């Protein structure tokens, strides 16, 4: 598999970008390139193993007919966003900060205040400007395959789709700049599942990139199930964390600079778990357990081995069953009460693989810098009605603004909220 993969990567010519500037928006249409893996046909044995123990075990669940919830791809009008249902602690307020961006997900901010947000299925990157208290947005890129990853450093915006990488140089000064394609340098695997990227620059100025496991539960190749870091040009790749199922959020501790990341627990093992994780990388290359050992030391039911949790770094905190703990950032601002400083806000997109909905909120996690005494507290709730077992919003990412307020993206409604605090 790995040699086949590397052959395939070598043989693939660097693709040129077909671009057509849209006069009205100045956006670039990036021609969609669906990714075609050319791995050799699997053996009968491999398929038997897959169908017999691939981990899709609906019979283990109370409700065997669970399926992911579809997102909305059309515009949600502000009048259809029930802002009054959102609950935050006393002293905090929530406003609808930007809207009309279906599928909006991971956010990053430029040094001059521009916000960019990635998406998944709808294939767009949005650019949002705040001009005197009024937000406008445009579509910076479209028709990409799940451009979930956005990061900013040194005046340049980095966009990462499933296996394509673009850099927009000096974009805040040159809004129509043509992106430089860095795909060949990053050598990312082509599998789609769990490979929408989360990316962020670390305190070492390197670009950290998640490469998830392309399955619910499986033995991932040595190209998958990890968080990597690269020099910003795609060179010097190192694996920072291994045994990762699918991380869609990480940040660096404000005091230690260590990488902390969320990871989604597997499905179809039980309704109540294994729970999603919040992890801390204290040593480069640490192993976090996938696929053998989950959450706080729960052995996998399908991929079995002796001493499954031996050598596994256990999580700092459990983030709830199937809660989809995704975007997370440490809080370093001056606006919120002092005890929020160095705590973590985590957006939980919400469950599908359990009968009763769980998550659909933003929680606050407090722990010591070395990852002890973690406590998870609800912070922003009301996107889900537990009595009706229905949801209307799905928080996916959080981002602190320079004034210390917090942006929260809601994929379901294509909206970004701003949470502020008045003393």
């Amino acid at each position, binding site marked *: 598999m790995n040699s086949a993969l590397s052959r395939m990567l070598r043989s693939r010519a660097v693709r040129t970008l077909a671009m057509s500037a849209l006069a009205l928006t100045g956006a670039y249409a990036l021609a*969609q390139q669906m990714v075609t893996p050319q791995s050799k046909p699997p053996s009968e044995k491999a398929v038997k193993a897959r169908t017999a123990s691939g981990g899709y075990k609906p019979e283990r669940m109370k409700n065997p007919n669970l399926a992911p919830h579809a997102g909305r791809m059309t515009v949600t009008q502000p009048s259809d966003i029930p802002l009054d249902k959102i609950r935050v602690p006393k002293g905090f307020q929530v406003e609808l900060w930007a809207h009309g961006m279906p599928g909006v997900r991971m956010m990053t901010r430029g040094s001059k205040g521009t916000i960019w947000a990635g998406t998944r299925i709808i294939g767009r990157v949005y650019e949002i400007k705040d001009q005197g208290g009024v937000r406008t947005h445009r579509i910076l890129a479209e028709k990409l395959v799940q451009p979930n990853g956005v990061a900013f450093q040194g005046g340049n915006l980095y966009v990462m789709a499933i296996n394509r990488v673009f850099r927009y140089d000096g974009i805040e000064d040159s809004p129509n700049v043509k992106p430089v394609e860095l795909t060949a340098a990053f050598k990312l695997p082509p599998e789609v599942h769990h490979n929408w990227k989360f990316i962020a620059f670390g305190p070492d100025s390197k670009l950290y990139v998640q490469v998830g496991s*392309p399955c619910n539960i499986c033995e991932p190749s040595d190209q998958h199930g990890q968080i990597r870091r690269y020099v910003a040009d795609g060179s010097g790749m190192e694996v920072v964390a291994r045994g990762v199922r699918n991380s869609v959020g990480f940040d660096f501790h404000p005091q230690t600079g260590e990488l902390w990341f969320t990871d989604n627990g597997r499905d179809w093992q039980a309704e109540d778990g294994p729970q999603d994780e919040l992890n801390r990388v204290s040593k480069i290359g640490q192993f976090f357990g996938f696929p053998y050992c989950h959450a706080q030391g729960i052995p996998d039911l399908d991929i079995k081995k002796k001493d499954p949790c031996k050598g596994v770094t256990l999580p700092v905190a459990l983030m709830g069953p199937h809660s989809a703990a995704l975007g997370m950032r440490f809080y370093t601002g001056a606006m919120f009460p002092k005890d929020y400083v160095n705590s973590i806000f985590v957006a939980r997109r919400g469950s599908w693989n359990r009968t009763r909905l769980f998550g659909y909120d933003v929680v606050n996690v407090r722990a010591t810098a070395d990852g002890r005494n973690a406590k998870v507290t609800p912070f922003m709730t009301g996107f889900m009605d537990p009595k009706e077992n229905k949801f209307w919003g799905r928080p996916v990412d959080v981002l602190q603004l320079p004034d210390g307020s917090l942006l929260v993206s809601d994929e379901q409604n294509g909206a970004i909220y701003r949470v502020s605090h008045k003393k």
Partner: protein
Amino acid sequence: MQRFDTARRTGVICRAVSLTCAAVLAAAPCYAQPKIDPSRGAAKAAACASCHGSPQRPPLAGMPTLAGQQEQFLVLQMFLMREGLRDVPQMAGTLKDFSDRDLDEVAAYFSRQTPARGGTSTKPKLHARGEVLAKGMACGSCHLGDYTGQRQVPRVASQREDYLAATLKAYRDNKRIGTDTSMNSILYQVPDTDIDALAHFLAYQ
């Protein structure tokens, strides 16, 4: 209803609306969506029948049955094709002038039709192999036990066999996108022979 394209090309301006919005929302229902009218969808859908054959099985090779298809699935797939996210040239042309509301109404129309059934298989061995695979791969979890689907998960029962086989292969080869990547994941490394058996079994459900 505003055309989607217009909304996105002009950009949407938004203000800090927390207080006013909360006040308005307290008085008005939050989900005042326009009522979907399937009969309006029928007029729009007339052009679809020559290829899709609805409510009969489609006469053309590789063509899906739309009758009785899940409403949410139809809306989302038509959206993906209209926007060029799912590359089906014939459909992109047809859907070019469909508004979001048109998509809703056409989907409402087709989803309320009763589909033709697939009949009885004349290849019992292939059928049996397909059944084993469908159960082993837990297709019925999302597509339900009778494979009629739910929400964005499509009805696969009694679709044309050639359509099912081609679609499953396209998912495996990452040439087809859904509204999530479940199908890419489940079909990872499944060989053609097994996909053909699955397609055969499902076509006769």
